[in-house]
């Protein structure tokens, strides 16, 4: 790979960040990375200037319009009229009577639903998990990683817990504790929240959770149980990195999968397709190498 190609690839990476940079939505580390690049790259600096100028031009043009005095008066009139109707004695009594009746109906209905659940229905956690379970059609293997992410990080709120690297190493065990420094290094801009082993439907997972504000990402690893990514997998197959990765998305989640001889690995998140792909292209090769060494 020539130096020029490397620079162009890096520019492409930085330009993905520029929209978020303009809106001040980047993590501090990523902001510094962008600023360092802009110092030495005129093309990217010009691109940033164009984006900023366009934002200002639009803001100035739209800001010139305001609501009319007539609209303000109409709204104030609406509010006073509605308030007068609500506070009139007759309406007041009627509305309170309705509110009491509605509360009674809700109480009786709620009690009977709860009663039937506690006697024979599924537990609330199970029901919640079932509701949140998202599946990608024609991407059966990718659903393995997706299911663990949703069950563990989302439903059981592990995304909100924060462990120290030492605690994560202890929970992962001696075989997998080496993943902690690898993931910390490769997932720039994300904070490592959790590293542990978890279990879903008789399958054991090694699970690391990363966060950047509301962006939640899981690295999920599990031993193969006879599965392998088929060559004709309907989900996209990419070979941009040194290993083959497979990707698909649901409405809310993006999944990238990869495999070694004995393991399946997944990068699952609520990021955009391009962001998750970028994160996976950084994480997957290093994790792949780690797992191959483990197999040796």
């Amino acid at each position: 790979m020539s130096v020029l190609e490397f620079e162009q690839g890096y520019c492409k990476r930085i330009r993905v960040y520029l929209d978020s940079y303009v809106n001040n939505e980047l993590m501090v580390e990523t902001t510094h990375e962008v600023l360092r690049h802009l110092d030495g790259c005129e093309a990217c600096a010009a691109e940033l200037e164009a984006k900023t100028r366009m934002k200002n031009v639009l803001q100035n043009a739209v800001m010139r319009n305001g609501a009319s005095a007539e609209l303000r008066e109409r709204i104030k009139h609406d509010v006073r009229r509605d308030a007068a109707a609500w506070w009139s004695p007759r309406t007041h009594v009627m509305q309170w009577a309705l509110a009491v009746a509605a509360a009674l109906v809700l109480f009786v209905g709620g009690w009977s639903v709860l009663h039937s659940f506690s006697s024979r229905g599924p537990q609330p956690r199970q029901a919640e998990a079932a509701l949140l379970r998202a599946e990608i059609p024609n991407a059966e293997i990718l659903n393995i990683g997706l299911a663990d992410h949703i069950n563990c990080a989302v439903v059981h709120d592990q995304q909100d817990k924060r462990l120290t690297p030492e605690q994560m190493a202890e929970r992962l065990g001696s075989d997998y504790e080496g993943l902690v420094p690898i993931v910390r290094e490769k997932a720039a801009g994300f904070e490592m929240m959790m590293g542990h082993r978890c279990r879903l439907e008789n399958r054991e997972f090694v699970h690391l959770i990363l966060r950047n504000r509301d962006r939640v990402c899981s690295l999920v690893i599990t031993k193969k149980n006879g599965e392998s990514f088929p060559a004709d997998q309907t989900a996209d197959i990419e070979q941009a990195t040194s290993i083959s990765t497979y990707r698909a998305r649901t409405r809310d989640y993006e999944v990238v999968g990869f495999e070694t001889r004995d393991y399946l690995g997944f990068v699952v998140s609520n990021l955009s397709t391009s962001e998750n792909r970028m994160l996976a292209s950084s994480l997957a090769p290093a994790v792949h190498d780690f797992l191959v060494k483990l197999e040796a």
Partner: protein
Amino acid sequence: MKFRRNAKIDDFESAAMPHIDALYRAAARVTGDRSEAEDLVQETYLQAWKSFHRFQPGTNCRAWLFKILFHVIQQHRRKWYSSRGHETDELLEQTVAYQPPVAQHLKDEDVLAAFDKIPQQYRDVVLLADVEAFSYKEIAETLSIPLGTVMSRLSRGRKLLRSELAGFAEGYGINKSNANGGGK
């Protein structure tokens, strides 16, 4: 009783009315029609008043009002969409491949005309991010869409706006090669 009622109205007006210009601007850009925008804002304020007991003082009243506004807009859009078509993502992909420069001098009316040409789902996000300066999280909550969708729509919306603006710039004789310099 009258005193309590007036105090509640005062609380509502002091919290909500300062944001009327921002709400009207957004509604006007979304609908492209002043009269329709006024109706949407009026409906928004009435709904906000009716649910003001659920608003927690000290929280972001502007974001709360925008969420109601876009809920009202969404209800209206269901009617609009039955009579208007909208472009598919595939068609849009073809129009955003080239990133033209942004000219220095553009008339406000041309900027607004260019902005109004962008498909609605992108216009909403660009408006909330670039004009109203909401965070990605607030936009996701306002429009009830995932955070990743906010980011992708913002990026694509900006590209589309840039393409449209380039068309206006070329109309003034500012061609692609000198538009970036803006007369240097």
